[in-house]
């Protein structure tokens, strides 16, 4: 029987946590950048300007058709050759964000297109400008629609960010690998790493749910209403 080395846990846990914090930093930063870029790309593709539309469409297509790990390696190893020396961490953020933006732009585009064009017509017909209609009418509704999907991408990102360990960013997985090379206890360390990823994703998923609830206008909170309805329902008579 294999004996589990529990002593490893207290000794290396802080080091793994440091990695987890870098994982969170990577995820939040690339999410923020990815959201901004993704929205910009979506708006550009819907702008009706051909010279903007096709390069953006090409970007989305290319970035979705190349594996993330390859994108990260390309960015990390080509940026210096064009004179841009980004630290590995920032190359990781940029790589993750560019990849995420390609996907999020499609999420935003679909959400924007799902808003009934009649609302745009109504805004125009009372004299609102196109910009005002976007800001006040279309985007608030589109964002609300996009939030669950964006949340899903964020949770995926927490895990996919482990790929930047390949470009030597000391995030959770890479710190785990370092511990293993010192202790040769792959099983224990990978399990600790797995548990930390699980906890982060689990908490993130609950947060996303919470945000989703908050953004739902009160009359549409079906869950709550039906729960209340159920609670006040009389017990069924035999």
């Amino acid at each position, binding site marked *: 029987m294999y004996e589990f080395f529990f002593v490893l846990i207290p000794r290396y846990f802080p080091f793994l946590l440091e990695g987890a914090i870098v994982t969170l930093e990577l995820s939040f930063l690339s999410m923020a950048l990815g959201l901004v870029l993704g929205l910009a790309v979506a708006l550009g593709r819907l702008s009706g300007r051909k010279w903007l539309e096709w390069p953006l469409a090409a970007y989305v297509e290319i970035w979705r058709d190349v594996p993330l790990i390859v994108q990260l390696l390309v960015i990390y190893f080509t940026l210096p050759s064009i004179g841009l020396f980004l630290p590995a961490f920032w190359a990781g953020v940029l790589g993750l964000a560019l990849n995420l933006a390609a996907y999020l732009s499609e999420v935003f585009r679909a959400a924007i297109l799902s808003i*009934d064009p*009649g609302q745009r017509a*109504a805004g*125009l*017909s*009372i*004299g*609102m400008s196109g910009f005002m209609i976007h800001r006040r009418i279309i985007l608030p509704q589109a964002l609300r629609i996009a939030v669950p999907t964006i949340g899903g991408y964020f949770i995926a990102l927490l895990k996919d960010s482990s790929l930047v360990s390949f470009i030597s960013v000391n995030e959770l997985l890479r710190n785990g690998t370092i511990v293993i090379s010192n202790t040769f206890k792959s099983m224990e360390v990978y399990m600790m790493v797995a548990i930390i990823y699980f906890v982060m994703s689990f908490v993130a998923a609950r947060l996303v749910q919470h945000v989703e609830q908050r953004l739902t206008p009160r009359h549409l909170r079906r869950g709550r209403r039906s729960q209340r309805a159920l609670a006040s329902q009389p017990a069924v008579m035999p």
Partner: protein
Amino acid sequence: MILQTQPEPLLQVRALHKSFGAHDVLKGVDLTVRPGEVSFVIGPSGGGKSTLIRCINFLETPSAGEIMFDGRHLCREEGNVFHVAPERELRAARSEMPMVFQHFNLFSHRTVIENVIEGPVMVKRRRRDEAIADAERLLAEVGLADKADRYPDELSGGQKQRVAIARALAMQPKLILFDEPTSALDPELVAGILDTIRALAERGMTLVVVSHEMGFARRLADVVHFIADGAIVESGPPQRIFDAPENPRLAAFIRSILH
């Protein structure tokens, strides 16, 4: 000699053309609307009624012709060149002739009162509290005082359309455009909206109404325009249009509606 004391037209459309690609939808429409007048636009499906009032409000950009609203040109021909007024002037004009749509087109993430104050606050830069006070008065007028904080999803079709009317009225418009305001409503809700529109007419509001409600048109209209195949075929007071149509297409249309 008798002096005509007709007031200046509020809206004057001349030789208006609109094509979508190779498809000519409006082929030279002339239309005059005087202040306080109630004009109905009737005609067969696909004849260009919606396109016409969407062009008047510049939701669609006309291809050629002239639209003059309240003394200002929204578009005109000069020589052989078609000029469109700058976007800012178009927006100003739109805000004075809002449109009420067949499918209501309320802002679904906004409550009833927020729908009504959006234009006054964002376009006319009114103070929010004043806009709210006005909106409450308008909602009471259309019988929705108790629905101010509801969302559109929580209203019946008739209630939604009355919110849309209040939203238009909140712009303190010179003219309101209606595109089949009752066509998407359950039959029992139609009368309520027609009453609301009649009340506007009786207060002297200038209205341009696209409608299939012929009985309503007959009772309320000052002028009825029959449009078919992208042109106004016949115009006149409702009695003449409905009881003594001259144009054979109009006569056939009236017969088809009545049977």
